[in-house]
């Protein structure tokens, strides 16, 4: 514990160099920008900026990515409140009450409780991350390949079945991601799989290409297919973005409860930020003394979910850093960023690259603080961005996405792959198939094969090793609950209704 604290202080020292601070500042700015702009989420933003890993040093780049990660959360709430169009998925709930508050002339208070709540939750969650992740990493060193395989399968199940409106469609997306992950030369035997004679495909499909294409191109095609001229109105802010004493009194408990809900649900892979924000909203509605205000602009309904959203984002980093298992699209891109520096997140990370990982954690604190300081005073500037005509926005996103897909390897093959995946992304949106499971499948698929092979090599081909020992059994037990849980729940509900 004490040792970790010293390491964290070293991390702060890493961050407080002019270059790194500049990258952190740039990241908070870019992050807020992409959060504010509808259509670009943090995953896409980091994906688009990955080419900078070719020239910028690892610590600075990762500090910037961390700042983008948090910045997007802040920016997303602004768009939700003022435009009623969530800038990113975690802010969907915020729009419910936040936009009503803005319509009632309380935009300032809504923005303030979102920003301060995000800061409080982000800071607490980052403390938990700083002291929890190393403990988890230490435990993870004892996990055998079979245990890892079990963990990945559990992550597949939760990400596949908890996202979106249809469990089955989540699994369809996952299977497609797994197939994409198979393309290319097999790591151990060198056997070519699913390349169909194309030499460009030997190295496999770049994860960044998948992410950029499925988010940017898929989204643009989908919006084009549904294009009608709608004039969205940006609500004005009257007075300062600040809150009264009464607002504070009503906000601080939801902030803390939101943190308590959001962080653990990020650590255990519960699939994205929709679930925790939704839960937090439900809890605040149930506990509130002003129930009649809900639906008309209750500040608790903004404070809780916003805190849950940020705490969740930090929670997702715990398994990403300590186990190397990303469970959200954004965490997946951060993992790819690590990999492009030839750094593999996982149990060894805290020992092999302490300066980077602690610099990253320290930068989360600094970024969070910068966001609080920058966001509220600059709110009018962000609001101006909301007035960019949407056709320029889509044009810019599309062109930049194509650049991101090309610049990684300077190859037109990557661009052709991006087009194909863009079409898949369009079809997914059209038919209600969630996108994150595909990304998780494409990233974790190869990793699961690796652990699968290692386990069987240890046992000389005896498949019993896959369930040998306590740890895999516990994980498969949880997996069983995750799968049958929803059925039992439905059955109980139906039974209760009949009664």
């Amino acid at each position, binding site marked *: 514990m004490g040792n970790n604290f010293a390491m964290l202080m070293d991390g702060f020292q890493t961050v407080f160099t002019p270059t790194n601070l500049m990258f952190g500042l740039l990241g908070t700015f870019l992050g807020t920008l992409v959060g504010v702009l509808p259509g670009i989420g943090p995953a896409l933003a980091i994906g688009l900026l990955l080419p900078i890993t070719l020239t910028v040093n690892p610590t600075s780049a990762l500090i910037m990515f961390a700042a983008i990660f948090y910045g997007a959360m802040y920016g997303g709430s602004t768009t939700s409140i003022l435009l009623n169009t969530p800038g990113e998925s975690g802010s969907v709930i915020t729009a419910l009450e936040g936009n009503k508050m803005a319509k009632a002339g309380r935009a300032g208070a809504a923005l303030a409780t979102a920003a301060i709540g995000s800061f409080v939750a982000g800071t607490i969650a980052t403390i938990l991350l700083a002291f929890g992740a190393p403990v988890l990493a230490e435990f993870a060193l004892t996990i055998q390949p079979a245990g890892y395989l079990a963990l990945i399968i559990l992550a597949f199940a939760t990400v596949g079945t908890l996202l979106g409106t*249809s469990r089955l469609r989540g*699994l369809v997306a996952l299977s497609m991601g797994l197939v994409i992950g198979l393309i290319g030369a097999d790591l151990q035997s060198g056997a070519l799989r699913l390349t169909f004679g194309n030499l460009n495909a030997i190295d496999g499909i770049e994860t960044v290409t998948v992410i950029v294409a499925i988010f940017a191109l898929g989204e643009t095609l*989908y919006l084009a*297919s*549904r294009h009608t001229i709608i004039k969205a109105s940006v609500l004005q802010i009257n007075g300062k973005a600040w809150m009264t004493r009464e607002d504070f009194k009503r906000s601080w408990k939801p902030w803390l409860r939101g943190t308590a809900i959001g962080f653990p649900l990020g650590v255990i892979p519960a699939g994205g930020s929709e679930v925790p924000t939704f839960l937090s909203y439900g809890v605040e509605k149930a506990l509130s003394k002003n129930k009649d205000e809900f639906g008309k602009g209750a500040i608790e309904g903004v404070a809780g979910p916003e805190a849950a959203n940020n705490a969740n984002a930090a929670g997702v980093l715990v398994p990403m850093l300590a186990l190397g298992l990303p469970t959200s699209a954004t965490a997946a891109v951060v993992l790819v960023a690590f990999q492009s520096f030839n750094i593999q997140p996982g149990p060894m990370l805290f020992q092999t690259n302490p300066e980077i990982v602690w610099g990253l954690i320290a930068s989360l604190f600094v970024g969070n603080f910068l966001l609080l300081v920058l966001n509220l005073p600059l709110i009018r500037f962000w609001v101006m961005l909301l007035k960019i005509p949407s056709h320029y926005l889509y*044009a810019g996103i599309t062109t*930049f996405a194509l650049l991101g897909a090309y610049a990684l390897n300077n190859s037109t093959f990557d661009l052709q792959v991006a087009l194909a995946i863009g079409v898949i992304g369009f079809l*997914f949106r059209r038919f209600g198939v969630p996108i994150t499971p595909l990304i998780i499948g494409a990233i974790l698929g190869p990793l699961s094969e690796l652990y699968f092979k290692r386990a069987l090599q240890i046992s000389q081909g005896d498949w019993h090793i896959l369930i040998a020992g306590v740890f895999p059994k516990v994980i498969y037990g949880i997996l069983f609950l995750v799968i049958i849980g929803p059925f039992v729940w439905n059955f109980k509900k139906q039974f209760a209704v009949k009664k």
Partner: protein
Amino acid sequence: MDIPQGNSIVSPQTFPYMVAAFASLVGLALIFDVLRGNYGTPDGDLPGDPFTPLNLKTMLIVATAISLHVILLEIAGYIVAAIVCFWGVAYGFGSRRILKDLCISAVFAFVVYFSFSKGLNINLPSGFFDGILSNGK
């Protein structure tokens, strides 16, 4: 823990077969689900279902702009390809101020080209502008 080459306890085909089995299973389940009338809910907050008519005109323009970018990139260079793509997508999404859009596309393309090729040292095809912009590199 390096595994020596030629170790063939697990064939490179085993895992793909498992993936294939899983994909076939969920694929079949999806077919039955659709046959039973669950057509899925489109993503996002736009109302509608999978039968809502598509805006084919906008889609076609946007898809053409993207494809032209891919085709033009290595023939005509990044700047031309980016102008075509940016302008085309903006036009597809209903912008009709053709000259203004061309100017914005050009500024966007130049800024991106220079910040990537000079700032980040990422080489993008220069096309026609080769020699004028790249100082004989």
